[in-house]
């Protein structure tokens, strides 16, 4: 047994290393460097130690935007998952309806984020927008530019419109991979529609649903463009989510040090939750 050792494959990995270095490692290192220093630009920095971390951890503003972010993500998951699964269950399994439904479902996913924001902004304007005008004509006092409740309603509605399709498509793929034999067995056993869903479809969709939760969590936790275009974080700070607040701090106020500390804390939270999801997914992998 003489195996020749060939390490040539490593050469082909080099481009990836270079790419990751430039788009992840170097920026991240810079953020770490910035988070311990104060700067007024022109590459002059002064050491501040852990001051920014302490300030951010005790800052009311950070707590508020983190709270808003968590609530937003929670509401998004609470609405989009059941809705997505529900739509996937009612979608046709064969015939001409399949491509029609699939194309209709993927349409919102294809629209760029800032276009979605602009669309919904115009759509929801109280005087001229179809949604805003209709709601006001129906007697609701709706104005998303002035009332925080309305701003939240519009932002959530927009995100549901934009991203429920992703859950639908994933669930639909999961549903389609279930063998007909399971349904036949359930029919013989006289299982009700709910039993079929609870004991066949849901367990079989577990993997894609974990993926859907992870993707929807990440996207909604890091949401920036859509609320930026729709509400700009307003009225006041009502829809000022974490990444909006971060950009305001970094580019609006040019507080690069505190913003770097905040983005590291943000990054660690995202990393922790991703790890938890990854662990849950891999745990099932090992068992099966």
């Amino acid at each position, binding site marked *: 047994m003489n195996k020749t050792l060939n390490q040539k494959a490593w050469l082909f990995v080099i481009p990836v290393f270079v790419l990751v270095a430039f788009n992840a490692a*170097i920026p991240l*290192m*810079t953020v*770490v*460097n*910035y988070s*311990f*220093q104060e*700067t*007024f630009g022109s*590459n*002059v*920095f*002064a*050491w501040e130690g*852990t001051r920014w*971390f*302490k300030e951010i*951890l*005790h800052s009311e503003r950070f707590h508020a935007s983190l709270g808003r972010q968590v609530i937003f993500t929670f509401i998004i998951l609470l609405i989009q998952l059941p809705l997505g699964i529900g739509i996937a269950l009612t979608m046709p399994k064969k015939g001409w309806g399949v491509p029609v439904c699939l194309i209709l479902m993927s349409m919102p996913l294809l629209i760029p984020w800032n276009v979605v924001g602009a669309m919904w902004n115009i759509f929801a304007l109280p005087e001229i927008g179809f949604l805003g005008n209709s709601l006001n004509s129906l007697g609701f006092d709706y104005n998303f530019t002035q009332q925080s409740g309305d701003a939240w309603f519009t932002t959530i509605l927009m995100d549901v419109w934009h991203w429920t399709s992703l859950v639908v498509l994933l669930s639909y793929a999961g549903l389609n991979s279930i063998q007909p034999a399971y349904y036949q067995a359930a029919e013989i056993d006289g299982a009700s529609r709910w039993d079929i869903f609870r004991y066949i479809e849901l367990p079989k969709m577990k993997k894609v649903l974990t993926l859907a939760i992870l993707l929807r969590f990440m996207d909604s936790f890091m949401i920036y463009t859509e609320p930026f275009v729709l509400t700009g974080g307003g009225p006041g700070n009502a829809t000022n989510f974490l990444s909006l607040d971060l950009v305001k701090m970094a580019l609006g106020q040019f507080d690069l040090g505190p913003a770097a500390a905040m983005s590291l*804390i943000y990054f*660690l939270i995202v*990393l*922790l939750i991703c*790890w938890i999801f990854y*662990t849950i997914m*891999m*745990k099932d992998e*090992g068992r099966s």
Partner: protein
Amino acid sequence: MFTNLYAATWGEVGKAKEKGFFDFDLFSWMAWTWQTAAFFIFIALCITVMFIWEKKVPGGSPRKGILGLDTTRGDRLFVSLLGSAFIHLFWLALVGSVLWVATIICLGYAIIVFRYV
């Protein structure tokens, strides 16, 4: 040569600086300090040690730890580092000073993770 690795002090703000070895424009914007450089060197060392360890004892010594998770050496390092970051953050939030105590706690935490998780 290494003067630029140290952070500037408030007295130097606004003054023109002498150009040192690391002061070419491609690099100076990264604002290196010896503390943060030491941190990344530590991370690089960790990865190197893991690499050597893997060469000596291949397979990553997978096991089911006290949390009921299947972990390898790399998982344990990740859990140690991520946990240490949070321990430091909590320490900063709740105590605020003498951060090295948190570092010692992290060391203990890492040993426990590598031993039992």
